[in-house]
């Protein structure tokens, strides 16, 4: 699945998007964050406060407990500041 990052999450991870293949057992957005954090310092830094990170699956806001099975694109970003 494709993972995309925005704002300071993107800056900390050091890339705007990537393809990932999480192992079996990674079933929710929260699981995916936990798994990403194991992938290196930059991920640990980006997701050091998972409670402030927001997520979207296929362009729709989701909660941390949303199931990721079947997702084409998962996005992680900080609270939004548009308008």
């Amino acid at each position, binding site marked *: 699945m494709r993972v995309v990052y925005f704002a300071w999450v993107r800056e900390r991870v050091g890339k705007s998007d990537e393809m990932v293949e999480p192992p079996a057992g990674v079933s929710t957005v929260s699981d995916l964050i936990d798994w990403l954090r194991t992938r290196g310092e930059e991920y640990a830094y980006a997701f050091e406060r998972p409670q402030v990170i927001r997520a*979207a699956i296929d362009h729709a806001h989701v909660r941390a407990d949303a199931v990721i099975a079947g997702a084409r694109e998962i*996005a992680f970003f900080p*609270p939004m500041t548009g308008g």
Partner: protein
Amino acid sequence: MTATIRLQREDFDAAVEQAALTRGRTDIGAVVAFTGICRGEGIDALTLEYYAGMAETEIVRHVAEAERRWPLKGVTVIHRFGRFVPGDNIVLVITAAAHRGDAFAAAEFLMDYLKTRAPFWKQEERAGRASWVDARDADDAAAERWSARPHAAE
């Protein structure tokens, strides 16, 4: 209802957009046009990043929601992205209705949405240093959003 939704780098002309919404119509009694502008307050510039694809989808969905809640004759939402200096236009929301209460309510609803839920992020430049703008209100909402409801996708 007429709905115009655009995400663009270039500036907008509120008068042109409002004229496009009301031209040739006699069923509109009230038009509210909100313009959001880049303020100075010690900042040199503002850069706005957005999630292409999701931003459009989300705005379309919320314009439909506004239309469901209030009897609207037309809505225009234009959100710019890119780099802004103080005084630059950032966002335009125009709502048209028969009565003013509906136009005001829908415009406020759409702006509240754009501020806290639309996938845009602002970065400020102060004295040459860039920093991401904090979303205090959004933080509060975030706590609620991430609360434990099993498999509750929104």
